[in-house]
């Protein structure tokens, strides 16, 4: 009797394991409320979302609908007020600074609308940033950074400073930085928002390439319906709620 029970349980377990293996990001009942003095802003309400490994989805919605907040919660830059979050099948249970820092470093790459490159550092030094917080030799670090820059077609601008580059080039540096550590998830918050449409298309192509060739999961916030159309799935937000 005990023996059969055990067998059934094992079957069940391997079944859920199989499912979980394919799910990269899982949000259940996520809520985010900002409290400042007397004002309470509900930025996210009851978000349930799962993104499969290797999926490329876009998040759309009007300004102030909670898109950035959602991305920050997924990327562990912000702590949800309620609900739970799993990354590649592992629930995030501890929100201790060091713990989060390690997950961000190993699993996630960020791309921002305003690039957020460090102006004091050269292009290649910027790209090395995620690798600085890992144990590896300087030469290995440099090798990986150069490889990432090569991937975005910027190997000729390695020793330039960000201010010497065009907006499109800067965003490509930012992408190189985001992929330098081979993260499994790329989170892009309006990556083309500050670029003209031609440059924007180039950036989107790079992201699609990465998604196709490296199986990197991509979550991209965008205002541009044309771009959103090119992704596998669109999640729409309105007033902090999912709408479909």
């Amino acid at each position, binding site marked *: 009797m005990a023996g059969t029970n055990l067998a059934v349980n094992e079957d069940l377990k391997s079944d859920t394991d199989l499912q979980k293996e394919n799910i990269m990001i899982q949000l259940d009942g996520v809520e985010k409320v900002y409290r400042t003095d007397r004002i309470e802003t509900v930025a996210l309400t009851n978000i349930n979302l799962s993104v499969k490994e290797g999926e490329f989805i876009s998040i759309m919605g009007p300004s102030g609908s909670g898109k950035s907040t959602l991305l920050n919660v997924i990327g562990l830059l912000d702590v949800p007020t309620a609900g739970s979050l799993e990354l590649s099948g592992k629930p995030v249970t501890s929100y201790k*600074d060091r713990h989060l820092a390690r997950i961000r470093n190993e699993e996630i790459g*960020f791309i921002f609308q305003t690039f*957020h490159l*460090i102006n*004091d550092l050269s292009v290649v030094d910027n790209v090395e*940033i995620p690798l600085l*917080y890992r144990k590896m030799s300087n030469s290995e670090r440099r090798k990986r950074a150069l490889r990432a820059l090569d991937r975005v077609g910027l190997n000729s601008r390695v020793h330039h400073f960000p201010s010497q580059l065009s907006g499109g080039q800067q965003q490509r540096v930012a992408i190189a930085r985001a992929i330098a*550590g081979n993260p499994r998830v790329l989170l892009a918050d309006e990556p083309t928002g500050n670029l003209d449409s031609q440059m924007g298309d180039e950036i989107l192509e790079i992201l699609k390439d990465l998604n196709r060739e490296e199986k990197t999961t991509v979550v991209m916030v965008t205002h541009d319906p044309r771009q959103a159309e090119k992704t596998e799935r669109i999640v729409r937000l309105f007033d902090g709620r999912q709408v479909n």
Partner: protein
Amino acid sequence: MLKNYIKIAFKVFLRRKFFTGISLFAIGFTLMVLMVATAFFDQIFGPFPPEKKLDRTLGIFFLRLKGPNSQSSSPPGYALLDASARNLPGVEKASFFTVPGIAYSYWKGEKIKSFLKRTDGEFWEILEFDFIEGGPYTRDDEHNANFVAVINQSTRKRFFNDESALGRDIEVDGQRFRVVGVVKDVSILRIVPFADIWVPISTSKTDAYRKQLGGGFWAMLLARSAADFSAIKEEYRSRLTQVEFPNPEEFNEATSGAETFFEFISRMASPDQTKNHPGMLLAVIVTLMVVFMILPTVNLVNLNVSRIMERASEIGVRKAFGASSLTLVGQFVVENVLLTLAGGVIGFIGTLLALAGLESSGLIPYAEFYLNYRIFLYGLALAVFFGLLSGVYPAWKMSRLHPVQALKGGSR
């Protein structure tokens, strides 16, 4: 990791030349002033030759005589020292000598001004002078009132144009002395050994000094070890109660003390000079130094806070890509300590120049400042302390920034 912190720091310094320049100047200047002050302090109180045994030497520099109607403060007199400061238990050797006085010589039609000190033979046994030629006079010379003199290098130059002075006569204050030794110059800041010309006490023009309780003399007591200090002080104090006063109508009470030079200075600095307060003087000096450091530190903290807040988005980026708060504190503290160490180097160079300038200006006769290891270590400690003090708070404040806020530019 440290290597990377340093690498990043250098890149940031080079990219922010203006900020780096201002900081370096402020830090360098502050440290320079503190180090020059320390060099002075060391020059006055440190165990330098000829006072190599300062750690087990006491002096008697001060006497207050009190009577029914009057009181007087002065250096002690020979009679008082002779009666009270000889053969103190724990004292290996005692020496009595006059305070340095100005004396004139008329030499080949020129008037030469010198500092003259009359000493006993023990003076040369306790102190370790650097003889260029000849040697000291002895207890016998003092006993027999031989007219012999030790002169310093500068005096030899004035009288003999740098030629050998041994066996030659000089005239000082109307008396003739035969030179038996020439020593290297001693700074005026080392007031116990300092003089241009040293001669035996017994060559004084009159022997009135032998009866005087107050005036004109200091004593130097070489203890077997510093552990004997308190017993020596105690015994000297109790002997003072037995002093015989030749004229009790005038004075009938003597206050004095065997003390270190620092204790003596602290006595002179206190309003009531009957007691020394070395702890208080030290506290005042340390307070002054701290106050002097506060302003540049506060400035540097401000500079650092605004510099770091300017770099809020960098902090946000680093956090987003895996830097923990602790890592960031480390990075910024290392940056700041490096900056202050660089400022320290500038301070050292400035100190060297300032001291060399002081020496060659001749403002302080025969002063010879060395940047010895004490000053070096003190400067290093100051620089690191300064760096931590001005770096830790801004770094801590910065590391508390919420990554999302930081990325937005750090407001709130």
